[in-house]
């Protein structure tokens, strides 16, 4: 169990984490989402006692990190940046960590095997690829067989097989009753692994909800219609009391009405349909929507941001209040 209470961290003028209050329960994977610079890594560093909070508190089973007497057996963390001495072999790197916590040495080859790095155990991480470095980080996190696992963007740099492996690993760890806290930018990735969801933007809490509820709330379903006679179709729909929205590409979008009913209606009035397709807005869109107001670092190449598409910020806030 990880508990945050009004956690705040400033770096000079910059507020990286702003009064965060939430908790992470054992037994489920909790996804921690936010755009770049939202404060995810900072929150994790605060948890590990690497940075000191400006205000508020962050506790692990009621204690601060530096009060843990067996830290690696308690929390295994994969940090954002490669936090490894490039000149020390993978084996020795894990060995020195094991020794610092009195973990038996036989655990080192075990975790190396688990992440598939046995072949390069004696090699120096300097020459590791991004994915290999990530695997070493995961091995390090699992070294103490911890009850809390915290991964900062674990799939970063992994190949598809590796991504699949991390996904299963996290679910397995959670099923064993551990607390799994994992950060990511990818809503779609999280929807496959996480059962619970915490979203932050600019250091502030935007959502703290179950994944199922999030999907339910946010997957807008609609039917797209395309016809050579859009005006006539609109009239027909209007008469039937069905609101339709004309989209810029010439198609119509209808919400909350089954595709079958729309098809029948068109057939009744002998309107030719070129397309009749049920659509689902992606979770990624929902996520962008939620954090739209809080994205600090965005590229300026796309003409149309998520804000422009569905008018903005109030949406996320209203949703947050509604939970």
């Amino acid at each position: 169990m990880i508990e945050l209470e009004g956690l705040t961290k400033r770096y000079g003028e910059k507020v990286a984490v702003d009064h965060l209050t939430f908790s992470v329960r054992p037994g489920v994977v909790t996804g921690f989402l936010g755009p770049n610079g939202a404060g995810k890594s900072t929150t994790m560093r605060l948890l590990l006692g690497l940075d000191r909070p400006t205000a508020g508190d962050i506790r692990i089973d009621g204690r601060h990190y530096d009060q843990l007497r067996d830290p690696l057996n308690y929390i295994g963390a994969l940090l954002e940046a490669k936090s490894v001495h490039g000149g020390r072999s993978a084996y020795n790197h894990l060995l020195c960590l094991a020794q610092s916590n009195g973990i038996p040495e036989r655990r080192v080859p075990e975790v190396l095997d688990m992440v598939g790095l046995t072949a390069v155990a004696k090699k120096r991480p300097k020459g590791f690829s991004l994915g290999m470095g990530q695997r070493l980080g995961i091995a390090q996190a699992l070294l103490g067989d911890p009850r809390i696992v915290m991964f900062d963007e674990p799939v970063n740099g992994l190949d598809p097989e590796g991504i699949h492996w991390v996904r299963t690993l996290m679910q397995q760890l959670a099923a064993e009753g551990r607390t799994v806290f994992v950060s990511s930018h990818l809503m779609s990735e999280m929807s496959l692994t996480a059962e619970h969801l915490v979203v932050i933007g600019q250091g502030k809490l935007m959502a703290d909800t179950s994944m199922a509820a999030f999907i339910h709330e946010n997957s807008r379903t609609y039917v797209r219609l395309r016809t050579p006679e859009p005006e006539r179709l609109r009239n027909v729909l209007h008469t039937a009391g069905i609101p339709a929205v004309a989209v810029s590409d010439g198609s119509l979008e209808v919400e909350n009405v089954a595709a079958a009913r729309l098809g029948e209606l068109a057939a009744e009035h002998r309107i030719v349909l070129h397309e009749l397709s049920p659509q689902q807005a992606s979770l990624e869109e929902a996520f962008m929507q939620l954090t739209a107001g809080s994205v600090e670092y965005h590229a300026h190449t796309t003409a149309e941001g998520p804000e422009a598409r569905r008018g903005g910020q109030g949406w996320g806030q209203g949703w947050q209040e509604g939970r």
Partner: protein
Amino acid sequence: MTTPHQQPQAQPPGGGPAAEAPSTAQAATQTAQPLSYTKPPQQAPAQPPAQPPAQPPTQPPGADHAAQYPPPGGAPAGAYGGGYSSPIPITRTHLGHAIASEWTKIRSVRSTMWTLSIMFVLVVGIGGLSAVGRAGEDNISMPMLSSGLFGLMLGQICIITLGVLVVTSEYGTGMIRTTLTACPQRGRVLLAKSLIFFLLAFVMTTVACTLTALIHHSVLSGPVDRLDYGYTSYEESVKAGEFVVQDGEWLGATVGAGLYVALLGLLSLAVGALLRHSAGAITTMMGVVLMPLVIALFMVGEAMETLREKMLEFSPLNGLASLYLIPMQDDQDASGWPLLGLLALVTAGALMAAYAMLTKRDV
């Protein structure tokens, strides 16, 4: 924390069939603690996925086993119970663990091997060469072991570099975050690093210096034909027509020199912890060691005389030279030991400052 002997019910004596005794650790937690989370832990393997199943129950019982696998007493009971409990023994960490860890760290990077080998080559090589060079002369210009200083003046740079790198390489690579996650007691990390480095530096430097001194002794001792020495203090180097080692010369040229250089290295470690930057810390230490001497060389004229004398006297190089009985200041009887004491005090101060900064600052 209970000892293995206090929980015999959980496990039949002799281990029992593996199928019957899943893991004492789990059995204990599952019965003793309320499950406060939504999903109960799975019945059987409370282990990470691909881990081989060779865990506690299947291991042969015995003292070794008991020591290796104490039951998990570290789990706090009550509100935070349940969750997951590992079959890996929970150990209350202490300084010994940090020391073992730091020893593994220091011996598993190449910079240690390189700096120490170069130090050895410089000290013994240059020392040996100057001893052989002096053997041909029949005038005694300095005490017998003192030319060991020349190699050591260069060799100390290696120790300074290693001392700095012990800390700064962790900041440079980001390893420090891993280190402090594994051991959040930052003072303990600094202490373990200091102890391991100091002992290693002291032993290696002392061995190198002793070897050099022995070379000097074997090459130089013996009868002298002509007594052509300028300074009175060297009179003691000649007894009954023989070139001999003065009183205290052995100690100063071996253990004294080793201690002095190891302390300089420890000071470098502290400076590294304060500056967190390899190049910056090494440059600073070079300045500390060389600047007083260099400045003194450029101080000419009567007015500056006392200041110049003080600069020379407290120059770190003078401390080392005095241990070899060739002090740079005018007082030729000055001993290096008070300066060594001063260096120890300065080093202790720097370490305390490093500790204060380490505990205060974000990583």
